[in-house]
């Protein structure tokens, strides 16, 4: 499992040096070359697309795109959701009521469709996707963290800190946050895979990453029409998504079992 994750992270970090070819500029004479073992050569191990771009190189660069989007999106959604969850759980009352209603509403919205709409109205871009991911994720964190805070704030050390005259901010940052950290970390790890899937889906529909950036979902979309004659164009990027998400989900499950076994499976 770790091997798988490492195998994913290395090409993502080093695509600029390791990738054998330019991911964006192709060479027309080399177009639609099949993968090695299917009549191709090692030169283009996973074949080339319609514009003669090397699939392997594009997949490696695509890893960078996928990972950076999901990490940025999870950070943004996680920070926002955690902050609101802390406020709701710690102060209770009106703030709690409002935040939890917002959570309910967010969770009741068909988020992918809103993502589509947003992408269309403000145009597809890296930033749009981050906003979409943030919107989809924050409610989950808020709800989970709030639940955690509710139980933590009843514990002795919080009462002691309060008696000792610590400010609310200090109690939250020094006492409550560290105790909720496991939940947050596990949740984040469990989310990486699904965020990659979300980004790939949006890119596939043409409302995610704009061309010609090598995003996996886009590559599958590009290869879709050629599935009969040049199957490798769509097949390998999709396989890359599958393996990546598979490995990340395993990692997430493992982290949950280690750090926070009470967190329910989904």
């Amino acid at each position: 499992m770790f091997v798988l994750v490492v195998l994913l992270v290395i090409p993502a970090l080093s695509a600029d040096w390791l990738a054998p070819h330019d991911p964006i500029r192709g060479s027309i004479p080399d177009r639609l070359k099949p993968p090695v073992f299917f009549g191709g050569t090692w030169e283009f191990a996973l074949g080339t697309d319609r514009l003669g771009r090397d699939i392997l190189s594009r997949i490696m660069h695509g890893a960078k795109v996928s990972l950076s989007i999901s990490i940025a999106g999870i950070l943004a959604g996680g920070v926002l959701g955690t902050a609101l969850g802390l406020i709701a759980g710690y102060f209770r009352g009106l703030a709690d009521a409002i935040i939890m209603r917002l959570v309910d509403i967010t969770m009741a919205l068909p988020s992918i469709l809103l993502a589509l709409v947003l992408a269309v109205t403000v145009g597809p871009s890296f930033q749009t996707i981050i906003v979409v991911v943030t919107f989809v994720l924050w409610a989950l964190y808020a709800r989970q963290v709030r639940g955690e805070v509710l139980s933590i704030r009843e514990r002795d050390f919080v009462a002691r800190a309060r008696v000792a005259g610590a400010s609310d901010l200090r109690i939250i940052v020094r006492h409550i946050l560290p105790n909720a950290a496991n939940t947050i970390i596990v949740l984040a790890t469990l989310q990486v895979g699904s965020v990659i899937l979300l980004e790939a889906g949006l890119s596939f529909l043409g409302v995610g990453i704009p061309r010609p950036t090598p995003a996996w979902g886009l590559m599958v979309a590009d290869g879709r029409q050629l599935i009969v004659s040049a199957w490798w164009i769509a097949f390998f990027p999709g396989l890359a998504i599958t393996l990546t998400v598979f490995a990340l989900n395993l990692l997430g499950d493992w982290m949950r079992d280690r750090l926070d076994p009470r967190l329910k499976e989904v």
Partner: protein
Amino acid sequence: MKRYLVIRSLQSLLALLAISVIAFAMSHLTGSPVDAMLPDDAGPEEAARLTKLWGLDLPLYEQYFVFLGNALQGNFGDSIKWQGQTAFGLVLERLPATIQLGGFAIIVSTIIALPVGVLAAVYKDTPFDSAGKLVALLGQAMPNFWLGIVLIWIFAVHLHWLPTSGRGGFSHMILPAIAMGWFQVAAFMRLTRSAMLEVLDSEYIKLARIKGVPERRVIWVHALKNAAIAPLTYFGVIAGSIFTGSVVIETVFAWPGTGLLAIDAIRGRDFPVIQAVVVTFAGVFIVANLIVDTLYAYLDPRIRYQ
């Protein structure tokens, strides 16, 4: 229970209202919708006339209430792309196809996931459980659009067993339903399994066995009715995600439903249709959740008798 359902309904209404605000805001985010409606050579007088006609000179909140009033009557205006059709009419026309495919996918995935999840818990740590886990992990890792393409490639293009795309007989539904449902099967199965494991370990299951209840009944009646509560809360999410998933799947399989309509409308910047689709999807999603809440109350007497 009445109280509980009333609260849930009110919450749903609130969510629907939020959706309508978003749908309304959508058409104003990209500038005046008039631009989209005008022919390229129209002069400013024409634009002013349309602005007046559509009430776009009113304050924003008044415009919203007009929009809301119209939306409540199913009036989202005329489609820009499909001349001569109303936006809501188009959605209604395409909805049955989506419900057919989505419903089929939900039913099939439930029929598969529930028993497999139960048996995986009963036969924990056996090869059956491991196989189930692998299928689930795969289902949660494969992007549905890619799975759809690969299925077409194998079963339609190579083997010629099933049609590649379009709506037709039963055989047309099989591939899209698999592509759509596998992820749900995975999620549903894992939830059922973990809920069952927890329940099977409980004292009341021990007591049922002590009473002499046969093991089969212990599992499928005593344990399952408890364990079903957890996956059921997730069922609304599943139903919703099947609907949103239809956007992708209908594109891949050229299935003429609302998902495909949505994508076509988005590509053609046909805002009335997009608004109609968003509000309709949200409505369906919310109704599905309300049904789930009702079922939930039925299953769990602790809620029923609140």
